[in-house]
């Protein structure tokens, strides 16, 4: 129990959001257990990023409510940290100071920032300017910044979307490792179904502003992309995302035929 307490509990009830006449979220219900890793997938424009921004407290709900540890989120969610798609590092500060931003540059931030940098394996870049880093390194720094304050909730807004395939696999492993160590609650928004299954305990599909599917990923970690269960699960979610109704068995057979 004490381990699980590190992450927060999130409960979303009847959440609705419209921008003017456009309804982005319609009657969303979602329970996230402490320490759980939930991935939200969906086509672009389905409202998944808006949902994440609500949990961060960056948007005002039109109706319904979001509770964190049974308290309504009102204004900016101070326990949450976001990792954005673009790293959003300050170009005029060193890598170390950028990580220190995660602790608000308060007392003793340097030591904590150094530790966080070690966790992502970039402590030797502490005094460099961000502009000389590669895209993958920038996202590692952003991850270190997000985790520096030991947040109980990590929100990931397509953080690996702009990275190349190999770097992305590295980052997925790093995120899994750190999540297993720290036991924070994680909410990942992505359009990459395989990434969702690789990382998450649960995959939630949002379509037209509603929860369309919510399935567990019963795979042990470390996960293997080439396992049959992984592939089957990926196909199932993909079929739902694309709106194709394919029978479970058929899809398996189709795949086998295609491979032969």
């Amino acid at each position, binding site marked *: 129990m004490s381990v699980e307490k590190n992450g927060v509990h999130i409960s979303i009830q009847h959440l609705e959001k419209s921008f003017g006449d456009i309804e982005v979220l319609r009657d969303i219900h979602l329970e996230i257990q402490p320490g759980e890793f939930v991935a939200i997938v969906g086509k672009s424009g389905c409202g998944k990023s808006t949902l994440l921004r609500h949990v*961060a407290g*960056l948007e005002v709900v039109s109706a319904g409510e979001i509770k964190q540890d049974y308290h309504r989120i009102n204004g*900016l969610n*101070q326990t*949450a*940290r*976001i990792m*954005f798609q*673009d790293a*959003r590092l*300050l*170009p*005029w*500060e060193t890598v170390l100071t950028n990580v220190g*931003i*995660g602790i*608000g*540059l308060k007392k003793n931030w340097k030591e904590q920032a150094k530790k966080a940098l070690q966790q992502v394996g970039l402590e030797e870049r502490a005094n460099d*300017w961000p*502009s*000389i880093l590669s895209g993958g390194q920038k996202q590692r720094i952003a991850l270190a*910044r997000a985790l520096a304050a030991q947040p109980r909730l990590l929100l990931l807004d397509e953080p690996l979307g702009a990275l190349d395939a190999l770097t992305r696999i590295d980052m997925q492993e790093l995120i899994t490792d750190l999540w297993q160590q720290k036991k924070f609650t994680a909410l990942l928004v992505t359009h990459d179904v395989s990434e969702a299954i690789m990382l998450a305990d649960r995959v939630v599909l949002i379509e037209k502003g509603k929860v369309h599917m919510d399935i567990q990923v019963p795979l042990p970690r470390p996960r293997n992309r080439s396992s049959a269960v992984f592939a089957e699960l990926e196909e199932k979610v993909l079929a739902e995302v694309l709106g194709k109704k394919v029978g479970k068995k058929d899809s398996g057979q189709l795949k086998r035929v295609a491979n032969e």
Partner: protein
Amino acid sequence: MKKKNWAKSYDKATPWLLPFLLLVLWQWLSSAGWISSKVLPTPIEVIAAGIQLSANGELAGNIGVSFTRAFIGFMIGGGIGLFLGLLNGIFPVAERYLDATIQMLRNIPHLALIPIVILWFGVGEEAKIFLVIIGVFFPIYINTYHGIRSVDRGLIEMGKVYSLSKWKLFSKIIIKGALPSILVGLRYALGVMWLTLIVAETVAASSGIGYMAMNAREFMQLDIVVLAIVLYALLGKLADSLAKLLERYLLKWNPVYWKK
């Protein structure tokens, strides 16, 4: 090794090559009688005038007076411009009340105020300093305001999500993001500062470089007139070089300023 050193110093000297050749050409044309001494004195005569005026302290005194006017005017005008630029950039309320008025006043050429300024202040120090203040204010104001408005919104949002204090948000993100633009304003303002001073000192003054030139004109001392022009050029270049140095120091994070 020696050859390399020689090449390096040659590289450093290249910008000065053309001015030097022009001086030699000027001297040669004058001494050969192609240019009448009533039109243009020779460079050596100008230098001689400089040495003579330095010897009796007149030159240093006049430069000192001009420099003091420039400095005081620049500090006051630049200070007000910076303050109002920050105020209007950060607080939309202030912008609503003030910006339109400032933009209206900006369209009055400040040198057109010379007659009224002389009526108000006479030909004393206040008149010159007042004109410099007005001239310097607008470029600093506009570039500060524009710099703040164009700070990356994503970075500001990041700072808010990471719950930076208001002061940290201002000092680490807003000011530093606006700094490149503010420095452009500074360099521009330095140019306007000299220009204003030259005109003001030539029209109405009883000391300063411009006065020195006007006085020499009365006695047909062409060498001193040219000396005054050269001095303005040198002082302008000096101010610009200092601003460049400042830019290089404050924006050292920007790859543009890295030496290869």
